[in-house]
């Protein structure tokens, strides 16, 4: 129970890009740049940060949809990079990904039944009539009920919220141990979003599946997750127990980020920390703290030293900053 389901060590993903006038110059975009974290069994782990910081790339690395440039991903005690064919099949059965856009992630030419049953087919689980039962069962669970009224429909005949329920049902039907949910509610409308958030919470509590929950919405991360990691330009700058990180952020970036989140309470006087500039692309980086250019607490040391590593500042709370 205590040993983590997933352990990531020094994970890197560099994309090569062409730049320069004749696009001859080869450069590297350091999308994920040496990150480490652990996800426990049955845990909802949040990965937050602004657009382009490397969240989706991390998610894709974890489900083995792209290969890392360096680093190690240990799932259930085995490195997923060195799996043989049989093991890869098992791995694919134990991890699933749910995407942001339910419009694009479902095959428009397949019926709802075929979409949800497809993972069962691929992994040869159950005879046909058993599959019907499994699919009907999971559909009721995700709130696509009565299942009979949905199974012969196509994705375009469903609303956005219903489509995301189909995507969740498809991910859950083979009873995975681990799900990467990449902004699963960001395209949904408010009332539908809350329904889906509550659904994921309920399924997680019932099934003890582990989640990497990717979002840019810190309030949602706080609501759902027990631990989070905050990314900035390919690095994790702060991580730990959810209340510690969100209520008592330590890294200047996390402090600025959290102070910018609007509060749904008109009597609350929010003071935001002003930071300069915006997020750039992780190309041609100087070997120092990623946040240096925008930091309001930087000093000589920060300028000349390498990117700081995460260190523990209190129990279950880690930060990568020389000032802490």
């Amino acid at each position, binding site marked *: 129970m205590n040993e983590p389901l997933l352990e990531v060590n020094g994970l890197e993903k560099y994309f090569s890009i062409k730049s320069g006038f004749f696009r001859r110059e080869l450069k590297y975009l350091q999308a994920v740049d040496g990150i480490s974290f652990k996800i426990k069994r049955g845990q909802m782990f949040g990965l937050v940060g602004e657009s382009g910081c490397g969240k989706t790339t991390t998610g894709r690395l974890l489900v083995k949809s792209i290969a890392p440039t360096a680093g190690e991903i240990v799932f259930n005690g085995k490195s997923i990079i060195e799996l043989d064919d049989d093991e890869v099949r098992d791995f694919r059965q134990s991890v699933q990904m749910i995407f942001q856009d339910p419009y694009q992630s479902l095959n428009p030419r397949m019926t709802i039944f075929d979409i949800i049953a497809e993972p069962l087919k691929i992994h040869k689980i159950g005879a046909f009539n058993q599959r019907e039962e499994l699919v009907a069962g999971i559909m009721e669970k995700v709130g696509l009920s009565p299942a009979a009224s949905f199974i012969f429909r196509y994705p375009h005949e469903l609303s956005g919220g219903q489509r995301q329920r189909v995507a969740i049902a498809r991910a859950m039907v083979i009873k995975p141990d681990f799900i990467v949910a990449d902004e699963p509610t960001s395209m949904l409308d*408010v009332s539908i979003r809350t329904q889906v958030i509550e659904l994921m919470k309920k399924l997680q509590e019932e099934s003890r599946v582990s989640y990497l929950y990717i979002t840019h919405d810190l309030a*949602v991360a706080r609501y759902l997750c027990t631990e989070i990691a905050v990314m900035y330009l390919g690095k994790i700058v702060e991580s730990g127990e959810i209340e510690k990180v969100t209520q008592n952020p330590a890294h200047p970036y996390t402090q600025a980020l*959290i102070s910018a989140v609007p509060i*749904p309470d008109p009597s609350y006087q929010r003071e935001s920390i002003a930071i300069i500039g915006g997020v750039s692309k992780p190309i041609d980086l100087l070997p120092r703290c990623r946040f240096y250019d925008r930091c309001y607490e930087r000093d000589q040391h920060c300028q000349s030293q390498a990117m700081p590593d995460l260190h523990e500042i209190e129990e279950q709370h880690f930060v990568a900053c020389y000032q802490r």
Partner: protein
Amino acid sequence: MAETILEIDNLSLRYKTKKGDVKALNRVSFQLEKGLALGLVGESGCGKTTLANAILRLLPDNAEITGGHIYFDKEDLLLLAEQELREYRWKKISMIFQAAMNALAPVYRVGDQIIEAIQNHAPEFTYSAAKERVQRLFELVGLDCSRIDHYPHQYSGGMKQRAIIAMALACDPDLIIADEPTTALDVIVQDRILKRLNRVREELGMTMIYISHDIAVIAELSKVMGVMYAGELVEFGSTLSLFKQAIHPYTAGLMNSFPSIKGAKNQLSIIPGEPPNLLNPPAGCKFHPRCQYVTAQCRQVRPPLYRSPTEQQHFALCWHPLGANGKENDHE
């Protein structure tokens, strides 16, 4: 008693489509005091953009206003000819359109686009006067003046949004309507832009209608708020009053649909079902199929206007107002 700058009176609008009429606005009424910021919230398709566009009559050909009045400074805009209305656009009322940051023309310098907008609507401005004005506007919205001669692709998303705001402020309007100006921007950028927009608004004493689906943004930005549902304005009043005691069950549910980064972690409440299709909206109260307090009356008759006992201007359309007759407001 402060002066009313805008009054919407029983406004109804439909879009004609092949499948039938989309009843996008149904008898919307409210009054907005000069100098205030009004936040309009509601889910996708409830009619927010339609209401905003109707004020300036920037409507597609298939739209038809089927009833009501729009008074701006006591003048009924619906009675004005297109030519007369043009005098209002930009100069008295300006608009920041939804997804406007993609609307900057890619091949023209940003500064020139704003100068052109100024000269189109206020021909009395010479080129150099307009250029000076642009510099002043850039300072106002927090853009570096060296950016005036840059092209849109040299701008980040947040900078484009500031340029759009600058453009909307160009002719010093009395009312500015901002339709989701910060969706798709990161939270830090959104925060900076909203702070700036609000500061400029206060400095210039402008009235604003701010449209958003994010109740937290509305809570922070606006003194009064309106909640729309399925083409109707179901609740309206001071933001403080709505948050303290929502009258409409939809408002109460909406307020409890947003987790907060601060304060106690409350269980979110689920509003079951989905918003109706406006081709065929439900009879009676539009919210009745999703409402836990529904009775026969709700299914048949449009609810009357119920006024809050503690705040006159706070009202909702509901047969079973929360907080009335000792009924508990169960959003807490």
